[in-house]
């Protein structure tokens, strides 16, 4: 079965790819999902130019910067995204799918520790996974939105490089912005 001359149709083929994480775990992923990771897509397309893909053997794509648990979550999220090749749904089907996705997203976020968000964002950035990056960036923004300055510093591992009087000045300037903030 040769894919070199035709455009692969992800919906009909069950082409899978194997991704190898930093802790040496192997993940078999459907091509349609893996292609959402643009870094993987690029690697795959580069490989296609050589003879490897033409032979139809499964290539193992190494992802030395991504841990297995993180990849698992990203793949799971990628699977839930509307597939680019999907047949256009009517309005009702679209609405149902949207609701399902929302529910899945809420469930996903509930089970995540805030620190894991940083790992997910880092990995999504490395993989160039746009939808994942957008989703987790928003999740992180939502998480820190009402947090104190001290919390944010600790969370991101940022050192305070202000003199006390400088910081005091900035705090006074917008005192109202410091009201109603979550307790640390």
């Amino acid at each position: 079965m040769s894919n070199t001359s035709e455009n692969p149709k992800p919906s009909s083929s069950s082409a899978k790819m194997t991704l190898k994480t930093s802790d040496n775990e192997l993940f078999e992923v459907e091509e349609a999902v893996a292609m959402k990771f643009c870094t993987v897509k690029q690697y795959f397309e580069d490989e296609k130019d050589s003879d490897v893909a033409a032979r139809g053997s499964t290539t193992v794509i190494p992802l030395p910067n991504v841990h297995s648990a993180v990849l698992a979550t990203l793949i799971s999220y990628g699977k839930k995204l509307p597939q680019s090749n999907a047949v256009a749904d009517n309005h009702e089907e679209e609405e149902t799918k949207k609701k399902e996705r929302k529910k899945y997203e809420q469930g996903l976020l509930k089970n995540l520790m805030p620190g894991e968000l940083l790992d997910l964002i880092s990995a999504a950035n490395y993989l160039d996974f746009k939808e994942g990056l957008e989703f987790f960036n928003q999740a992180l923004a939502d998480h820190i939105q009402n947090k104190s300055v001290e919390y944010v510093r600790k969370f991101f591992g940022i050192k305070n490089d202000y003199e006390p009087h400088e910081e005091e000045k900035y705090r006074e300037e917008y005192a109202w912005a410091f009201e109603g903030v979550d307790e640390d």
Partner: protein
Amino acid sequence: MSQRKEAQPTKILRRRTKHDLPEEIVLEILARLPVKSLLRFRCVCKTWYSYITNPNFISTHLLCYNNHDGGYVIHMPRTAVHMAYFHRPHSQICTLAFDRTFETISEFRIPFTFQSGYHGLVGSCNGILFFTDFIKSKSKNVYLWNPSIRKFKRLPNTCLNQTQVLNVAHGFGYDSLNNDYKVVRFSWTRTKWMPPPEVEVYSLSSDSWKRVELGISWRPNVISYSFNGISAFPFVSGHLHWMIEMIEEGGGQERRYTPMILSFDVNSEKFKELPVPDEGGLIAKCLTSYKEKLALIKFGHGAQPLSKLCSIWVMREYGVLDSWNKLCVLPIEISTDFIGFTKYGLLLVRHRSRLVSTNSELERKHKSVLIDPEALHEKEISNQIDYHLDVATYMENLALLDGANVVSY
């Protein structure tokens, strides 16, 4: 750090190794935060301070943060002429509400006052509100107000050498090429509208006014112009617009009434005329914006007595006469006032009071409704808004953060 895969394979421990997110990711996250958080997070460290106060970030944040499904509006009671005439006290309270339902979220006060005691909301741009004294002869003070960061600024005085200004008109828009906000002011020193007004432009980045040329040749037969005061100055495609009505003298005793749209390119600071679509019997009255396109509201007589026809036209392709497209025709009662379009295209109108007999008593009933012009569907606003409203789109915007003469409250 070792991983206990057997116990909970999907959870990982937050590793304390180097996990600095690249700058562009941090900026993307910051762009999704409301201004209150951003003002606070300036204190996190000096780098974050420079991110948050950077003008490019401010314009990115404006687009990114305010781009969600639900929008917000600020509304307040509009100053009416009779109010000022009878020295009625005027509320300084503004209400923040949901765009689609006008359900109230919170209230706050206008943080500055005018000499006459009556404010006039002239318009807004990117969430910054523009106010003048309702009685323009009382004071020349004009204010820019950003309610999302609680800052306002009184603009410096005019650069024109004017002895007696009898009337002014304004426009307020955003120059996206230079990331600058600009105010246009027309001033007339005579009661008649001839000669043409003097024009000056204020730029926030330079914090100063400068004179500009109108550059339009008024038509020779025109005996009077008036700037239509009903609508504000729609800001569309980088241009500000005003509706001008001209009365031209034809041959003999004929007088011809012609509407014209004056447009101002905020970036190049040049004026132009735009064509008005022709529709027999209906008079162009109100210029506004509908879903970021220029819109024109025309009125004419309806089939029934005491009914009006109102047609709404939209310029689909900016500047192209042929692209004026009639969106809909609304039959409305003669006692209906238009307030304006929300950002998402719902039209707010107010049906003025009619005497209604309830329980053998006469009552005045007002109602404000939101109309969807595409679906021609009307929805009454639940909270009793018994008065004329000024409405502006609310946006979270860090503009006016710094600068001369900016006051915090």
